């Protein structure tokens, strides 16, 4: 089918760009590892009882890893919007839109590209966490749920960021939007701290923040307290709505200029 052909061709291009462009690739791996190294070590001096009481584990890295990975999925979502802005500026978008390839395929390929860039961090980060003494439970299904959750999160956020830039050729816009959205969303999720310590209004935001759901799935797995699979449903809804909106809007509003 030619729509799928087009999607495959465009997605392949995004993937090639991930591994040919070395500096962003290095950033993709260095940044999260720095998180684990510095942020993960920052609480090492706390007494074990305090750690256990606050975070449910004596190794803070095991607590922060799911938070870091979920946050990364959101951060790398920005690559979808940067990618469309560059394609518009270089005229490559014209080259795509002068073919009968559906506009939805362009949108979807960029979402998948950004999600891929996010997901390649998962194995690397898990390995890094093991090096920092995190013990991995043997629960195959649990990992599948976690990774699917992260993927849904990445798809949802990439769709949102891409939508914001769908008609823009301003290369600063993606950064601007990222700066506005990323930190508040990270702080109002359970990525860094459990929500027991939050004031009530932050707790309310945290309990609907998609980041929280992906974080809790991973944390449930690593800390041996699995969450209800309904969390995955929530993330699936988040991803589907964002993606569906993106596909619909791109069909109408995606243009070369």
């Amino acid at each position, binding site marked *: 089918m030619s729509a799928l052909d*087009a999607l495959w061709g*465009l997605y*392949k291009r995004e993937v*090639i760009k991930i591994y040919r462009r070395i500096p962003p690739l290095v950033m993709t791996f260095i940044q999260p590892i720095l998180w684990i190294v510095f942020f993960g070590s920052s609480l090492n001096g706390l007494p074990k009882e305090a750690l256990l009481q606050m975070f449910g584990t004596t190794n803070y890295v095991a607590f922060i890893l799911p938070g870091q990975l979920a946050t990364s999925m959101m951060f790398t979502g920005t690559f979808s919007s940067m990618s469309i802005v560059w394609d518009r500026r270089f005229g490559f978008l*014209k*080259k795509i839109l*002068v073919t*009968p*390839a559906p506009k939805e395929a362009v949108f979807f390929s960029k979402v998948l590209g950004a999600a891929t860039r996010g997901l390649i961090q998962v194995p690397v980060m898990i390995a890094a966490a093991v090096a920092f003494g995190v013990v991995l439970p043997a629960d195959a299904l649990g990992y599948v749920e976690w990774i699917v959750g992260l993927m849904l999160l990445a798809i949802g956020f990439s769709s949102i960021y891409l939508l914001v830039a769908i008609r823009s050729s301003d290369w600063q816009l993606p950064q601007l939007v990222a700066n506005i959205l990323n930190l508040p969303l990270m702080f109002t999720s359970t990525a860094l701290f459990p929500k027991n310590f939050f004031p009530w209004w932050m707790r309310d935001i945290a309990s609907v923040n998609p980041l929280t759901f992906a974080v809790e799935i991973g944390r449930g797995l690593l800390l041996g307290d699995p969450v209800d699979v309904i969390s995955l449903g929530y993330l699936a809804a988040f991803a589907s709505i964002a993606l569906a909106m993106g596909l619909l809007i791109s069909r109408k509003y995606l243009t070369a200029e």
Partner: protein
Amino acid sequence: MSSEAVVAENLVKRYGDVTALAGISFSVHNGEIFGLLGPNGAGKTTTIKILTGLTPPTSGRAIVAGFDVVKNPNEVKRRVGWVSSEVILDDDLNAWENLELQAKLQGVSNWRERATELLKYFDLLPHAKRPVGNYSTGMRKKLEIATALLHSPEVLFLDEPTIGLDVNTRAMLWDLIRTVNREFGVTILLTTHYMEEADALCNRVAIINLGRIMAIGAPAELKSSVGGEVVELEVERPIDLSRLRELPDVVDVAAADGRIRITVRRAEEAIPQIVRVLDFAAVKSLRVEKPTLDTVFMKLTGKRIEESHMDYRKFYAMIRRARQ
């Protein structure tokens, strides 16, 4: 299939207050090389964008390869190829990958054979796996044309195909465009602001300025429409001119200050006739003046094309931006 590859009827395009096209009509016959010749801002690129379905016209109608660009843009897009004036390739991909992407976008199933054939034809096969970012400008242009031909389009749109290229590369591209037209049987619509290019390549030319078509015709027709060619003789002493006026190819004769200006239809045919009827012992020198398309443009607009055209600095800045 009708005999017209492109029919444009009264196309208007406005961008806010700017009228890029003020109602242009023309048609391109199947199999010909048709040129849109005009200066900066004439509306050449805008015309191509409308005809390839990239942007809709504000009003008017266009049929390309048998389909309406507004009602059936995808049918049009399947049947046309487009090469922009700024070279657009993905520098992170090699030639082969650029072609593969194009094949997937156009839904070409047997693309490998076709791509190999085209790369061979354009002498790019040995470089197929090199990143396109390292190609020379001429190679990039060739690859872009190959990409545009991958799905065997009926009509190929070339926007300023030789802008900013050196003389040799330009000559190479002219040859290539002619062969593509002949051997691949592709109708070509190109835009240019080089009058020699329009003259050398195109079967017919439309002269466009400020969103209006000023004249359409074969280059020779257009040139003869502004008055014929002139044969100018410099003579040592007055000679008998009476028999000149009887010659079939002579349009007009004027003599002043030892110079005789003979307006003729075609100098090549007229000169032998002139030699037979004049006393050439008295002729010191002979000079031929031929009108160019620039003469035509000047007559129509009061300006020269190349003067009203621009600016290599802008062009190179654009290239540099695009390659980074």
